[in-house]
């Protein structure tokens, strides 16, 4: 493929060389196909469903809408960087406990979005949860158990901040 580039991305605290990549590749594609970070999911490819949510310089973005080469020099955090594998985060534990996971395809994006929400707003109202997470589509659960999971984490954090 013509128009190839070499650049480096900082993902989950590690520098990754991206060699021989087509310049048109999205951040989602590069994370998944070149760096082997398969936790970010692609379901709509146009920023509507939130399945590919990652943090770029602490901002929650849809990685399908970001050109990988444009993220050079920024700190990228993916679902793989949210918590060590053997020590799941409180959000991850709550999603499993509350029945917020069915097929699981939307789940990594929702975990990212929930962490971002609770960083900004530690004790969100029901209305705030719905507004802040409305960019993440789930087709299985009808959202009830997801809202429950977010509220459970807020309670946990209020007890043991």
């Amino acid at each position: 493929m013509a128009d190839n580039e070499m650049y480096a991305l900082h993902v989950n605290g590690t520098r990754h060389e991206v060699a021989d990549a087509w310049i048109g590749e999205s951040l989602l594609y590069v994370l998944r196909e070149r760096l082997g970070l398969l936790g970010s999911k692609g379901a709509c490819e146009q920023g509507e469903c939130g399945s590919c949510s990652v943090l770029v310089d602490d901002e929650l973005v849809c990685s399908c809408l970001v050109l990988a080469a444009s993220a050079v020099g920024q700190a990228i955090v993916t679902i793989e960087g949210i918590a060590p594998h053997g020590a799941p985060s409180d959000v991850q534990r709550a999603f499993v406990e509350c029945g917020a996971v069915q097929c699981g395809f939307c789940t990594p994006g929702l975990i990212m979005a929930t962490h971002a929400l609770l960083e900004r707003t530690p004790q969100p109202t029901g209305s705030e949860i719905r507004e802040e997470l409305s960019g993440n589509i789930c087709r299985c659960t009808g959202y009830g158990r997801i809202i429950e999971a977010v509220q459970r984490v807020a309670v946990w954090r209020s007890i043991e901040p």
Partner: protein
Amino acid sequence: MSTATREGTIKGRLGDSPPRPDGLAKTQGAFAFAGDLSADGFLWGATLRSPHAHARIRGIDLSAAWKIDGVAAVITAGDVPGKPTYGLISKDQPVFAADVVRYVGEPVAAVAADHPETCRRALAAIVVDYEMLPPLFDPERAIDGSHPPIHPDGNVIRRQRIITGDQSLQGEVIVEGTYELGMQDQAFLGLEAALALPDPGGAGVELFVATQWLHEDRGQIAACLGLAPEEVRLTLGGVGGAFGAREDISLQVHTCLLALRTGRPVRLAYSREESFLGHVHRHPATIWMRHHATAQGSIQRIEARLVLDGGAYASTSSAVLINAVTHVQGPYKCANATVDGYAVRTNNLPCGAMRGFGVVQACFAHEGQMDKLAAACGLDPVEIRLLNAMETGDSLITGQVIENVAPVAECITRVAALPLPDAPVGGRDGDPLDLPGGAGLTADPAHIRRGIGWGVAIKNLMYSEAFDDYATARCTLSNGVASLKFATVEVGQGFVVLAQQIARSVLGVDDVVLEPIDTTIGSAGSTSASRQTWMSGGAVDGACRLVRERLFELVGAQYDIEPVQLAIDGRDVIDTMGTLRVSVSAATAGIELVETFEHHHRPTEELDENGHGNCHTAFAFVAHRAVVDVDPELGLVKVVQVATAQDVGVALNPLSVLGQIEGGIAQGLGLAVMEEIIFTDGRVRNASFTDYLLPTMLDMPTVVAALIEHPDPMAPLGAKGVGEPPTISSTPAIVAAIRDAIGRDLSRVPVRPADICLP
């Protein structure tokens, strides 16, 4: 193996809601979906699709595509070595269109290349010479014969009448209406994806794929590849939702063909736009109904004419039609019926399975009728439904007697007793997110009107019309650990956790290992038709019980006790008439007890020409009540609350049941007010999540659910399937609530703003 004794009771038995075994991995992004699978040296595959609804292929020029660097294969219909067509019921759909294309999106060719972008360029370089043919879009023209056949099998896929009782009876009260439903997409999030690994020398192929039924796929794929079924081995790739859309073949044969042609692994994955074209959808339908009743409101006779647009290929249209015509009476007593139904072929997208499978369409019509009947008889929506509610022992219009638990009246009265929302009309505290239209601040709270509506449904469980959709499972017990093997597809519904619960309950073990889900064991049937809890649950239960018998024989022989005296108590085998207590771990130390069980449901019959016969296996029931706020000037709807009571038999995993109820209601809400595939001349105008609107967290109301638990004696675990009912009557309940709010008839879903604000 640890021999430490565990404290306390076994966690995660039937009736508990233990964490699902794949849950944590899914939250960590570590669960492998089909689209995550890869192999050394793989190629990407991609599919060329027809841009025309109906055209003859005069020629295909592949030469420019072959010349692109990185292209390894370009294949068309001539490259299909086996059967050129496939299909679930009738094999009428080409792997690649050979001479004629019949819908926009029909596969014409496929390529394999080194990069997705190379694939896109190769597809763009393929030149197809099309000669336009007159398209057939109007189902009525398929019925009246005024359009030439668009397929050798003709334009009517199936016609089915139900003629029962007095054909001339006229009620004291007669109400009628025509109801329309648009085409709904399953819109699972995990796009179609597969990885095919060719055997050396092309002797066979291994396919990892997201599907609903591995063995059915294997049969269809092998036939098209010209291979024996055992030369095609399928393993389930992680499935990101299904809802019926994975019941038919999509990319399976193409992926295998590319792998066999190139001798290299091939990954094929659809884009979202392609997914809208590449799988079957819910049938759009037009249903006319006329109800005859006594002045007091008792239904005496129904008349109905149902027309389902099956699109270009048959898929499961004939079975969807049977469900629609046999459920059109709803969960109500009715002795006389005149029903005529058609599933027809057009040049629209092929339609097939989606959650509810024909009953969604029928229910929207019969529930609209019930409200008309209530109004005509001076009753309220609850009174008319209770008056006519079906009971165990009643006959359907097909003559089939309902032998299942049938708590229709109880579902209705339980819902009626659930609290209405305490939020005032237009929400509380002036939060704009509670208003129709949300944060756009478009709605004036002073103009908002609230409405309440009802929907009640009957749904068949399992497959119908003489189909033996059995399920197989194997249980191995060794050293106090059970292993389960089955081909039951996990699409997200949670069979994996239910299977563990069954084994723990039957065998008194904590640890239950799940073996890979693949075709190295007998079929489990499809993950559809609300059937896996009953069928595969029955198979796992049966296999575990056989192993438990072996265990009791073993222990009985060892201690000279009659095996029938033995029972499982906690983690131990105990003598119910003596003092023996030995742990399952100790009793199975160093040995392996292995048993396989096939669960078959009772036989069913095909319908005869008058629509009579015991065609269905079992039934479940559900009631919904919806509360909506409507802005009648802008045509905006906010669903405030959905209350439901569902006949579940037994809630084997209450959290999973609630998840099915809430998720099903979300899809019913989508059909009621948001979701429709829109066409112009057969071309989809909204094949994206930007334009095909799905319910978000802001669109979903509070769900208040009551579980009606009466164990069904016919069900292996007493439990009925719970997946489909929530989707079925939630839609008519929401539409009835909108009608109630604006005081006007609405006969089409999804309800669009113009339907509300323009008379």
